[in-house]
């Protein structure tokens, strides 16, 4: 009875208490689903164990006048098996489920492959280090080519280079609904590209390019945050990603493009 109330309560809290910011990428709703499941399981376990501790402390507290010991219970094999099995099953479920989520985010796709979809395919010889992305599922579904952006991080700014149109910008502009594939490299120390509303983060490393794929879904301005300690101004190393409707993005692109041929 109590256990049932606990499970229902935990599920309710997990589904209804929202601790996350806006979701603005194809990746984010999938992440939020995982978050709600983990939050529900976590709430049930936490309230269950802490509840048992508080209950024991109250019920089994030494009352005045009690001088004898407690029970001489040294162990109980079925119980031990039970509470080895329960966490094992929970962990197994969480692992398989998060694998599924990771796969849906495109994390299991070898990234070199998804990079082939780019106009500016990265040379196959080059060592491409992994990076999570919205992945080829999105690509095939929308049958659109992805937008490639080259990201350079340096103390203490991000620079975004659009090879198509040869635009260099301090803000990242992306059209909503179109997959974006970013190739990132750092000029000095390790930085990290993080957009909380996209639920995505990837370190930007000197000497080793990393790839990050995503599809923005909701127009708006979202912060880009450097998440890896990179020096005194680390806290102010921020930029903005501007997600625009495709027409608006095209206007921005035309205004800034240095390559008139591509405009046609």
């Amino acid at each position, binding site marked *: 009875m109590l256990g049932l109330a606990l499970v229902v309560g935990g599920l309710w809290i997990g589904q209804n208490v929202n601790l996350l910011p806006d979701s603005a990428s194809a990746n984010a709703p999938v992440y939020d689903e995982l978050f709600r499941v983990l939050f529900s399981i976590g709430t049930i376990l936490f309230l269950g164990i802490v509840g048992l501790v508080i209950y024991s402390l109250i019920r089994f507290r030494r009352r005045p006048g009690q001088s004898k010991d407690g029970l001489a219970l040294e*162990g109980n094999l079925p119980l031990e098996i039970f509470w080895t099995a329960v966490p094992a099953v929970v962990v197994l479920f969480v692992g398989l489920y998060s694998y599924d989520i990771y796969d849906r985010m495109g994390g299991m796709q070898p990234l070199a492959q998804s990079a082939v979809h780019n106009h500016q395919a990265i040379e196959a010889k080059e060592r491409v280090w992994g990076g999570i992305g919205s992945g080829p599922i999105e690509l095939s579904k929308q049958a659109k080519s992805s937008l490639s952006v080259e990201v350079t991080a340096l103390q203490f700014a991000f620079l975004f280079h659009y090879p198509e149109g040869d635009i260099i910008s301090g803000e990242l502009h992306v059209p909503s609904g179109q997959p974006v594939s970013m190739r990132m490299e750092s000029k000095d120390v390790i930085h990290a590209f993080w957009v*909380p509303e996209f639920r995505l983060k990837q370190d930007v490393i000197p000497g080793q390019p990393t790839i990050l794929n995503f599809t923005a879904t909701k127009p708006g301005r979202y912060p880009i945050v450097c*998440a890896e300690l990179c020096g005194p101004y680390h806290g102010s190393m921020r930029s903005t990603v501007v997600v625009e409707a495709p027409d608006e993005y095209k206007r921005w692109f035309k205004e800034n493009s240095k390559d008139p041929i591509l405009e046609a």
Partner: protein
Amino acid sequence: MTTASQQTHQSSSGSLQPKGWLKYFSFSLDHKVIGLQYLVCGFIFYLIGGSLASAIRIELSSPMSDFMARDTYNQVLTLHGTIMIFLWIVPVVNGAFGNYLIPFYVGARDMAFPRLNAVAFWLIPPAGLMLITSYFITGAAESGWTAYPPLSITTPAAGQIIWILSVLLLGGSSIFGGINFIATILKLRRPGLKLMQLPMYCWAMLGTSILVVLSTPVLAGTLILLSFDIVAHTGFFNPTLGGNVIVYQHLFWFYSHPAVYIMVLPAFGLVSEILPVHCRKPLFGYSTMVYSIMAIVFLGLIVWAHHMFTSGTPPWMRLFFTIATSFIAVPTGIKFFNWVATLWGGRISLNSAVLFSCGFIANFVLGGITGVALAQVPFDIHVHDTYFVVAHFHYIVYGGSVFVIFSSIYHWYPKFTGRMLNEDLGRLHFLLTFLGFNLCFAPQHWLGLNGMPRRVAEYDPQFTFINQLSSIGALIMALSTLPFLWNVIQSAFKGAIAGDNPWEALTPEWLTTSPPPVENWTGMAPLVKEPYGYGIKEESIQIQSPDISDPENNKQ
């Protein structure tokens, strides 16, 4: 600290050592003196590290960088992390309690290598002093306690090199300690005492020492290579010279993930000693507790790359480390269920030691749950390197290890000094610490989820209120040390006389005087085959077996 009773039964070998107060400031070979040296020295560093934490929380109570210069802030956070890990928690949960208790528990008169033991301790004060004075002389290291290159190669070299040297000294101290514990537990056991009869803290220290001996040398090697990069301009980790920065992270975390277990496994052991005494019940599931410690040791060595999910780790590696890390929850869970079962049906004295131990259980369960979540690659991709992680690991190392250190001080203070601590002040200390801690760190989960990265001096103004809440929590934590300090200092002189065994405990350290004589027992070491033999056996057999959920049956 009260030494009167100690003078009476000294054997000849102890007489070369200084007596009275002086011995605590000398190269003493007595494991109990060394243990208390570790404890007091560690606590002084805790106060310093805590002041640095307060400075961080003051800076973060406003979104601008206004309390200190930005590079000072990075020095402060680097020192805070390094001091709390290498000078407070590791030396205290291992060095202090390990040295004090392990020889008692195995029935020995001292550690296997007393001189090595003293050397291990005396490496700590100079290393700590060097680290802290570097702040005033050259400026301290400012690349975080992780010292990732190339940042650690490009920040001012003097501070970084001093940081490396002091961590090397502290690592050396830790290795000496580890070797000593392994030798003592395996080789100095009193004849007739079997391994599976040892108190649980011995098993925890055996597991921890295995981790120390296997992983700390890797950290030492890595830091030596890093210092070559800084001083001699070699290119091991310097990308401009063809080095690889990710290799450093693998090597660093090969030590630093096990370091988490070096901080919490001994704490698990200490809780396993404290709870049975005050619950008047045997430790539940002794042998599963032993196996789960060893499982944690093994798994702890193969999970390090969960700190590197955003570092461009290949997919298969992300997957492997997710699974391995998640599975640590199983042996850890077993321990927690066993502690709850130890509480169940007991006669629990709700004293400060028990409160801190139960506070530990609550905090650590939360930290463990967020830990399993963080182990999932897709989850971690969002919150890695944010305040969510800051909250998580403070729930593990503060809510876990530090709560246990306090619990242990309340439990063993009568043995250390022969006097009792004041219980009312102890409960006040617990209340303030528990409230302050949770107010400080619980809101930080939200900050991380919503976009605040860690190690920043300035942040988005939308996070101001929650940060101020967290800072108020930190203030309460800082205040909570006052009743504690007053209590330990004044009880040393005026506390009620404890007697040899105020808790009526069965483990061997209580079967001698308080404080104990130089070689621990005046006669033979007692043979304690059942360190947890509490409880009313006859009654429990008659009444108890059918239904453990109804303890009312069992009242006398």
